[in-house]
């Protein structure tokens, strides 16, 4: 590995910014250059589908670092000028504006883009995807105008938008093709609880139903048609049907891709001088049987720290415990670990009172937990998973009066 020459980070989002900050915090003195396609300085995306839409969070609260950060930390940020090509023979990237930047180490942090709707009418005005601050500004304006809101997709983003739009007093319908909400991400227990919460707030939740067409008037969306013949009024349509990793640059440069830029335990691609992190990277983890690609701030931040550590001489494999959170209908939902492969669930607490945790086990071992308004369970589960011990047994959790805090040894 080379340890000279600039560290060039492609993307100026969450993972990119944290890479620069972590490098400088560790006293790294090579030049650091962030190149971002968007013209805004790095900002937090999570509020975009939550408080930002309702006006609770203002734009000035989104910036991840203060104005003077780049100058003070001696980090160069090139914004609004995407990288269009990586030349691994000459170790340079080429920008849309034509400029070229030489790198010693290249970090790909290009994130992901929304999957597009492929039905007639998908390009009408009033149809939104939500990834960037620009998207969020436009959506916020549209929601401000009122009307009927249709959310396509019952995943994280769709449900957060539904919750925010209901909070603004709009009529909201969520259409989900699968049999339950957040089907890929959470247990049936949590899915059912969320569906109940959204319905109680007055959102119409339609499961097992697909959008087949959008119809408009004078270029603006008005009506949505579902596969069972239902027609719904729709003035604003928000499409939340997942994202695709931005792997084009890597693929063009001959790096291995496939649902993400493929990296090893050290987050390195097949080229020793090129790393990939954040939403665009697919990596092996001790927490899952197969390599995964994760979309979370935790993953972006901790992968950035891992790469910065490698570049400053404290190389370690990436083993962080994945976790996620979402806010819907005024409740805190937190998930720790990857629960996709569990074979047993035990619920602690009271779903009826809106405070519970679903503990997930595989072959008797704790693999993750989903908590609703039970943060201690969430945080302690994370620490137990990080420590790699056995954690509580399913039968312990099932006992009345179970308290996970007792399972946290001081050293864990």
């Amino acid at each position, binding site marked *: 590995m080379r340890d000279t020459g600039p560290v060039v980070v492609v993307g100026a989002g969450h993972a990119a910014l944290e890479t620069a*900050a972590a490098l400088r*915090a560790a006293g790294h003195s090579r030049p650091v250059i962030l190149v971002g396609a968007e013209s805004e300085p790095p900002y*937090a995306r*999570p*509020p975009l589908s939550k408080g930002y839409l309702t006006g609770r969070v203002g734009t000035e*609260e989104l910036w*991840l*670092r*203060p104005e*003077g*950060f780049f100058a*003070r*930390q001696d980090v160069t940020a090139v914004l609004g000028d995407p990288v269009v090509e990586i030349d691994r023979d000459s170790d340079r990237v080429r920008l849309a504006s034509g400029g070229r930047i030489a790198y010693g180490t290249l970090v790909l942090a290009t994130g992901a883009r929304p999957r597009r709707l492929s039905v007639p009418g998908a390009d009408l005005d009033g149809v939104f995807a939500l990834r960037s601050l620009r998207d969020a500004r436009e959506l916020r304006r549209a929601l401000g105008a009122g009307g009927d809101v249709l959310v396509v997709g019952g995943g994280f983003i769709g449900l957060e938008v539904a919750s925010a739009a209901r909070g603004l007093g709009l009529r909201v319908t969520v259409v989900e093709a699968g049999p339950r909400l957040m089907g890929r991400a959470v247990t049936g227990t949590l899915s059912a609880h969320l569906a109940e919460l959204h319905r109680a707030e007055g959102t119409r939740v339609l499961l097992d139903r697909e959008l087949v067409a959008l119809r408009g008037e004078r270029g603006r969306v008005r009506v949505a048609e579902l596969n069972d013949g239902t027609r719904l009024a729709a003035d604003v349509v928000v499409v939340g049907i997942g994202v695709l990793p931005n792997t084009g640059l890597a693929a063009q440069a001959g790096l291995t891709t496939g649902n993400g830029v493929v990296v090893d335990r050290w987050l390195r691609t097949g080229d020793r001088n090129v790393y990939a992190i954040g939403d665009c990277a697919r990596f092996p983890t001790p927490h899952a049987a197969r390599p995964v690609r994760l979309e979370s*701030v*935790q993953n972006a*931040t*901790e992968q950035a720290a891992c790469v910065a550590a490698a570049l400053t001489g404290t190389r370690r494999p990436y083993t962080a415990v994945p976790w996620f*959170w979402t*806010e819907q209908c005024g409740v*805190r939902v*937190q998930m720790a670990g990857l629960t996709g492969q569990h074979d047993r669930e035990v619920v602690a607490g009271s779903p009826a009172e809106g405070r519970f945790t679903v503990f997930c086990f595989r072959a008797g071992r704790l693999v993750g937990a989903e908590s609703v*308004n*039970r*943060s*201690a369970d*969430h*945080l*302690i589960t*994370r*620490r137990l998973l990080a420590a790699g011990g056995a954690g509580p047994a399913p039968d312990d959790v099932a006992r009345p009066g179970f308290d996970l*805090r007792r399972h946290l040894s*001081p050293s864990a």
Partner: protein
Amino acid sequence: MAKITYKHPDGTETVVEVTAPNTVMRGAKLNGVEGIVAQCGGSAQCGTCHVYVDEGNTLPLPEMHEAEDDVLYGTASERRPTSRLSCQLPVSEAIDGLVVHLPPTQT
């Protein structure tokens, strides 16, 4: 406006002026004070904005609500009687001069 002092584990300190309606967490982020991670952006979910309020503090701080208390049971650095989530400490003139200690690690 309030002056807030962030004491780092290595003994150094950073003093910044923070205006309402920010929080002690935002004050650190806005001024580039490293040591506060704040992954959840201030919604009392992540526990990565944990601070220890100075032992000698006499300034009025809001009561801890249930969500904050819950999160503080799982922070990466040990919980102490002085533990708070800095995102739950709003800045106002009433806390001018507040001193908080940053824990050794947030994640």
